[in-house]
């Protein structure tokens, strides 16, 4: 069982290969469409984000409310493609890992590796499993966005697949080459 830490720095990211399954642990910032728009507005006006983007991991997700006695409800990825218009400025700001589901636009696909950023695909619709891989979950900012708020989540052994690695490997193209 291969493990990786979300904010691990460049060394471990180099070793990832598209198609392999990993268990992801550590801190991720969970955000969806409207949080992305706010991040893009802050970056374009030179304002700081509510978290340090250098070396950070973004998870395209929003959990269900936590039941009593649990730190988090169900948790899983939303469609990454919708975040693509906002992704490259976040890479420029230092984000080095993205977690979501499904393929990316050609522009994002071709830009991540050169910047040293990877994209990991989680299995959509497996959120009871995902909710069990959470050590902590809290709203970090923008509570007014409801389920689209920015969350800080600490994962423990969350299963993901390397979709875009640092060497040009693309999980979603592997099937086409077959």
């Amino acid at each position, binding site marked *: 069982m291969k493990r990786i830490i979300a904010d691990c720095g460049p060394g471990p990211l180099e070793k990832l290969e598209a198609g392999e399954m990993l268990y992801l642990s550590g801190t991720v910032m969970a955000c969806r469409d409207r949080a992305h728009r706010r991040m893009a507005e802050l970056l374009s006006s030179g304002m700081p984000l509510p978290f340090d983007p250098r070396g950070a991991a973004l998870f395209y997700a929003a959990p269900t*409310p936590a039941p009593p006695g649990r730190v988090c409800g169900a948790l899983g990825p939303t469609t990454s493609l919708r975040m693509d218009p906002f992704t490259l400025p976040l890479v420029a700001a230092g984000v080095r890992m993205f977690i979501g589901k*499904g393929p990316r636009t050609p522009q994002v696909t071709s830009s991540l590796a050169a910047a040293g950023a990877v994209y990991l695909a989680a299995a959509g619709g497996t959120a009871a499993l995902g909710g069990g891989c959470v050590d902590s979950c809290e709203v970090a900012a923008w509570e007014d966005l409801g389920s689209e708020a920015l969350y800080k989540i600490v994962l423990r052994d969350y299963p993901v697949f390397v979709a875009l690695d640092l060497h040009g490997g693309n999980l979603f193209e592997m099937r086409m080459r077959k």
Partner: protein
Amino acid sequence: MIGCALKQGDRVRFLEARAVSEAVASMCVEACTRPSEGLRALLVKAMSASPMGPGRSALDLCLRNLDETVSTGLPICQDTGIAVVFAERGNRLVIEGGSLREAVDRGVEKGYREGRLRNSLVNDPLNRTPLPVNSPAIIHLSEVPGDSLTLELLVKGAGSENASASAMLPPLAGEDGITCFVRDAVLAKAACACPPLFLGVGLGGNQEMCGILSKKALLRPFGTPGETPAQKRLEERILAAVNETGIGPQGFGGPVTALEVRVELAPCHMASLPVAVCIECHAHRTARRVL
């Protein structure tokens, strides 16, 4: 809505709106947190047809997720969606203490609140302020003879709904044209829709009716082909064409992109061939009650 006239002497039955709300609330929780047996069997079959690799590993996670849902009570998917309700009301049934709309919406609100399901609605598509409740539900009401109320719930997430498509094809496009349209819709967006998929295909009616038919098709129980040989043949043909794409589970590649295809037909104008494909993820969530 198709009406059924009440005749003199027909006995009327009264049903409290609160009973409808209670039923809807429990249906929302049940659909989101109790995987059906039929789903597990389909995923197991898909796994046995898949070679080793990320696609097969993704199917394994889908199965492990069903176990986790059963043991923890957590929702199968964090996108607990929009509640789509098909209601058939008997013509001799009167709902007391509120309209059916109010009764269903109060039930959805209660189910999402007490079941700790995620609210995902915004007030309107332009302003996009989050709503504090997960209503209004989308309700399709029809009137039938009798004095009962049949409620069917489909919990529909956005990942799969966003991949759905409809078109007005040339009237003589036939099976070839329809199969091509569905396959192209799957190729365009289905990798983002959490395959392996269920595909509801609505044919005929008109522009809005084919969409409703495509939703209704998804309510058919697992393993039930269409009633007519033509439906069954088209279902098999579309399933083969979609699985031929190799998109596979989660878009990771493999021979199983869709688990089932269900085609529903309705009469249409001689000059039209309305078609809609409602794309549904593997986390297919439904519930049914007869009151």
